[in-house]
C-alpha cells in the first residue's frame, strides 16, 4: 500500500471525475454527496501521505518502473505532501459550498472540480519539468471551465483574458523547458539539479535564459507584479466556491518557484546558483505594495478578496526569498493565507444574496437578515486575513518578520501593507454592516433573472465555519505545524537527499 501512496492523491480525484462524467444521469443530490465523499477520501489519502513522509523519507514513484532520469517520477516530500493536504482541505469546504446551487448553473461542475484537484495534486507531486507543464495544462483547462461556469458577460470577458494569458504562459513554459533541455540534456528535476553545476560554458547562457523564462511563467501563475493584472477581474467575477478553490492556484506558481529555486538553482548549482535570487525579493515587495493599493481601492468585497490573494502571494514570496528560516515561516503562512482569503470569497457571495440592492459592493443597503451572525463571521475572517492576533496569520507574519533581521524594506512593506489591509477590511465591514439605510422594495437582480435558488444557510455556515475552524486549528496547533514547516524547509535546503532519492536507483 505504501508503495503506491505517492500516486494515490492523483488517482482518487481522477477516478472520481471520470465516474461523475460517465454517469451523467445521477440526481444532483447523489452527485453532490459523491463529490464531497471523494474530496473527504482525498483528505484521508493526503493525511496518510503526510504522516508517511513527515519523518523525512522522500517517496519516489517511478511510473512504469522506468529508472529515474529516463522515466517520469512522482516525488512526495514534506513540502509536496503539505501542499496536497492544504489543497484537499480547501476543496472540501469549496465543494460543500458549491452544493448551494452553484453546481446547477452549468453542466459538469463536479467533473471539472475533480479534474482541477487532479491537476493540482499532479503539479505538487511531479518530479519532472515537462510533466509539470502537462499538469499545469490539466489544472488550467479545468480552471477555464470552472471560471466560466454559469456564464454571464463579465465572466466571459475576464475568462477570455485569463485563457489567452495562460495560453501565452504555456508557450513560454515550453520555450523554457526546451532551453533547459537543450542546455542540460534532461528534464527530470533531480537530474537537472545534478547537472546544473556541470553546465558547459557555451550553454550557460541558454540555461540562464531558460531558468529566468521559467521564473516569468511561474510569476504569471502566482500573479507577481507585472503579471498580476488578470487576477482581480477573474477571481472577483467567478462563482464563490470556484474563487475559493482558486485561492490555491497562485500558490501553485509560488510552489514551483520555491521548488525550482531550492532544487535546481540551489547553492550547489555552480554558475547557475541563485539564478532567481536577485529577482525574488524586489518582485515580492513590489507585488505586496501594488496589491495593497488595490485592496484599498476595491469597491466591493469580491474584488477586495481578489486583491488580498495577491497580497498573500507577495507576502509568501517575500518569506521565500529570506532563506531557510523565511521559507519555514512562509510554509506556515501559506495554508493560513489560502484559507483566510477563501473564506472572504465565500462570505462575499453569502452577503451578496442577502443585500437586495447593493449586493457585495461597499454601499449602504437595508439591514441583511441575521446581520449579527454574518457580521461576526466577517469580523473573524477579516482578523484572519489581516493577520491580527490571536489567529494564525499573526503567528505567520511574526515568523516572517523574525526571519528578516535587518531587512528594513521587508519590515516596512509588510507592516504598512498589513495596516492598509486592516483599514480596507474595516472600511468594508463598516460599510457592509453598519451603514444601513431604510428598507427599499428593490428586487434582487439575480432573483429577477431566476438564478436565485432558495438558499440553505446551513451549507454556507458549514463551509465558512469549517474554514474558520481550520484557521483556528492552525492557531491552536501552531507548535506542531511550525515544527513541520521548519522540517520541510530544512529538507528543501538539502537538495542532495532529494537527488539521491530520485536518482539512487540509476547510479
Amino acid at each position: 500500500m505504501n508503495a503506491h501512496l505517492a500516486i494515490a492523491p492523483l488517482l482518487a480525484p481522477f477516478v472520481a471525475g471520470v465516474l461523475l462524467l460517465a454517469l451523467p444521469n445521477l440526481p444532483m443530490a447523489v452527485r453532490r454527496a459523491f463529490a464531497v465523499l471523494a474530496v473527504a477520501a482525498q483528505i484521508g489519502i493526503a493525511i496518510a501521505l503526510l504522516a508517511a513522509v513527515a519523518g523525512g523519507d522522500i517517496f519516489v514513484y517511478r511510473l512504469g518502473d522506468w529508472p529515474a532520469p529516463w522515466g517520469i517520477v512522482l516525488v512526495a516530500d514534506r513540502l509536496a505532501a503539505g501542499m496536497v493536504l492544504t489543497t484537499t482541505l480547501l476543496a472540501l469546504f469549496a465543494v460543500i459550498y458549491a452544493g448551494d446551487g452553484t453546481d446547477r448553473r452549468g453542466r459538469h461542475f463536479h467533473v471539472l472540480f475533480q479534474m482541477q484537484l487532479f491537476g493540482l495534486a499532479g503539479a505538487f507531486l511531479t518530479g519532472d519539468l515537462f510533466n509539470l507543464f502537462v499538469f499545469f495544462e490539466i489544472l488550467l483547462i479545468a480552471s477555464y471551465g470552472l471560471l466560466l461556469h454559469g456564464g454571464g458577460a463579465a465572466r466571459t470577458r475576464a475568462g477570455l483574458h485569463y485563457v489567452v494569458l495562460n495560453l501565452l504562459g504555456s508557450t513560454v513554459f515550453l520555450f523554457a523547458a526546451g532551453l533547459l533541455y537543450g542546455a542540460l540534456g534532461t528534464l527530470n528535476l533531480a537530474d537537472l539539479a545534478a547537472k546544473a553545476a556541470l553546465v558547459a560554458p557555451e550553454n550557460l547562457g541558454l540555461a540562464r535564459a531558460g531558468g529566468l523564462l521559467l521564473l516569468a511563467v511561474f510569476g504569471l501563475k502566482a500573479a507577481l507584479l507585472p503579471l498580476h493584472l488578470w487576477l482581480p477581474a477573474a477571481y472577483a467575477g467567478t462563482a464563490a466556491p470556484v474563487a475559493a478553490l482558486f485561492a490555491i492556484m497562485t500558490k501553485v506558481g509560488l510552489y514551483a518557484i520555491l521548488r525550482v529555486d531550492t532544487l535546481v538553482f540551489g547553492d550547489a548549482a555552480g554558475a547557475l546558483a541563485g539564478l532567481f535570487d536577485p529577482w525574488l525579493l524586489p518582485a515580492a515587495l513590489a507585488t505586496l505594495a501594488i496589491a495593497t493599493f488595490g485592496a484599498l481601492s476595491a469597491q466591493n468585497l469580491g474584488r477586495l478578496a481578489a486583491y488580498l490573494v495577491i497580497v498573500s502571494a507577495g507576502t509568501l514570496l517575500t518569506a521565500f526569498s529570506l532563506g531557510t528560516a523565511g521559507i519555514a515561516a512562509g510554509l506556515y503562512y501559506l495554508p493560513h493565507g489560502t484559507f483566510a482569503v477563501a473564506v472572504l470569497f465565500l462570505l462575499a457571495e453569502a452577503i451578496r444574496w442577502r443585500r437586495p440592492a447593493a449586493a457585495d459592493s461597499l454601499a449602504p443597503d437595508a439591514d441583511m437578515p441575521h446581520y449579527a451572525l454574518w457580521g461576526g463571521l466577517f469580523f473573524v475572517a477579516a482578523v484572519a486575513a489581516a493577520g491580527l492576533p490571536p489567529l494564525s496569520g499573526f503567528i505567520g507574519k511574526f515568523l516572517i518578520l523574525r526571519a528578516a533581521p535587518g531587512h528594513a524594506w521587508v519590515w516596512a512593506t509588510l507592516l504598512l501593507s498589513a495596516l492598509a489591509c486592516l483599514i480596507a477590511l474595516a472600511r468594508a465591514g463598516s460599510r457592509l454592516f453598519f451603514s444601513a439605510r431604510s428598507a427599499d422594495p428593490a428586487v434582487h437582480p439575480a432573483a429577477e433573472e431566476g438564478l436565485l435558488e432558495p438558499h440553505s444557510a446551513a451549507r454556507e455556515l458549514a463551509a465558512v465555519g469549517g474554514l474558520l475552524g481550520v484557521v483556528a486549528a492552525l492557531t491552536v496547533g501552531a507548535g506542531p505545524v511550525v515544527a513541520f514547516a521548519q522540517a520541510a524547509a530544512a529538507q528543501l535546503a538539502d537538495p542532495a537527499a532529494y537527488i539521491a532519492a530520485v536518482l539512487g536507483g540509476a547510479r
Partner: protein
Amino acid sequence: MEALIALAVGTLVACGVYLVLRARSFAVVLGLTLLSYAVNLFLFATGRLVVGRPPVIGQGSGLTDPLPQALVLTAIVIGFAMTAFVIMLALRARAELGNDHVDGRDSP
C-alpha cells in the same frame, strides 16, 4: 540549416506576438496558433539538429535525440486542444458581448 530554423522560429514568434497584441479575438487566436507552431519547431531543435539519423539506438553510427520528438508530440496535442477551446470561447464572447473586441467593447 541552424540559421534557417532559427529564422523560421523567430519569424513565427514575431508574427505571433504581433497578432496576440491585436484587439480582435480572431487575430489573437491566430497569434496563439503561430506561437504554438513556433514552440513546436523550437522544441524539435533542442536535441540539436541532426540529419539522416534514426531516433532509436541500433546499428550504424549515431542517433538523433528521440526525447524532443516525444515532447513535440505532447505539445502538439495540448496546443490543439487549447486552440479548439479558445476558438469556442472567442465565439461565445462574440455572442455574449456583441462584438469581437478582446475587452468586449467596440473601440472608437
